[in-house]
């Protein structure tokens, strides 16, 4: 299994309320072992997964938001966010977490792999992917 494919994880659900966001994240974490070219895209209510400052202390839910910040260490190279979905929910880039990425072999560093994209660009990115997981 040496062939590398372009993986895209499409996240369309709010982080809590259903388990899709968390179980999607579990696939990303496990999938890291397979060394594929991995991008995530957040659209519709999925953009709420990246809103900073979430607090689950009074809802008896495990707060898995810190996990998103570690995704660079799990081989994730891009985290795209649909601009129209953000705007429709009164959110902007300032509301989102930043996720840094560092290649320990080449020492290449990226300050933030979270990137806002237009819907047509999002569609193009999905079309270019060889595998699209939809959650």
């Amino acid at each position: 299994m040496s062939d590398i494919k372009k993986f895209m994880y499409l996240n369309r659900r709010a982080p809590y309320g259903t388990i899709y966001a968390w179980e999607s994240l579990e696939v990303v974490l496990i999938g890291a072992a397979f060394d594929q070219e991995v991008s995530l895209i957040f659209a519709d209510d999925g953009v709420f997964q990246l809103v900073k400052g979430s607090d689950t202390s009074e809802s008896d839910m495990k707060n898995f938001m810190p996990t998103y910040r570690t995704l660079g260490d799990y081989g994730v190279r891009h985290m795209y966010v649909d601009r129209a979905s953000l705007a429709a929910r009164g959110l902007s880039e300032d509301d989102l977490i930043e996720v840094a990425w560092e290649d320990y072999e080449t020492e290449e560093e990226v300050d933030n792999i979270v990137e806002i994209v237009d819907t047509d660009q999002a569609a193009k990115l999905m079309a270019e992917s060889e595998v699209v997981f939809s959650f």
Partner: protein
Amino acid sequence: MKLSVQVNEGPYQHQASDSAYHFTKAALEKGHEVFRVFFYHDGVLNGTRLTTPPQDDRHVVNRWVELAEKYDLDMVLCVAAAQRRGLVDEGEAERNGKDATNIAPQFRISGLGQLVEAAIQSDRLVVFGD
């Protein structure tokens, strides 16, 4: 074509498992290869042998079992999703100290790596969900 199928919803509540079944059956009948069917989220509930629908309704679980028997289909329930939702085989019962099993024949419980591997090995991964 070599296909894999992901089923993200449970039986009866949602159409996803029905659609996935009809798609998989049609693909096999057309001579395509189905590398694996992977059940995730509530989709793991398609793999309990205790399911008892009314007699005049389709039996979603048995339908999958019969398809797997006919075509030697590899049907995998995600272990993490299965543990959360009480889907148990003998290995899991022993590991987690449970007093019963409920997995249907032809299904097996394994890790998410099986889904990622299926995506890599197949020409297409077809996802059925909400």
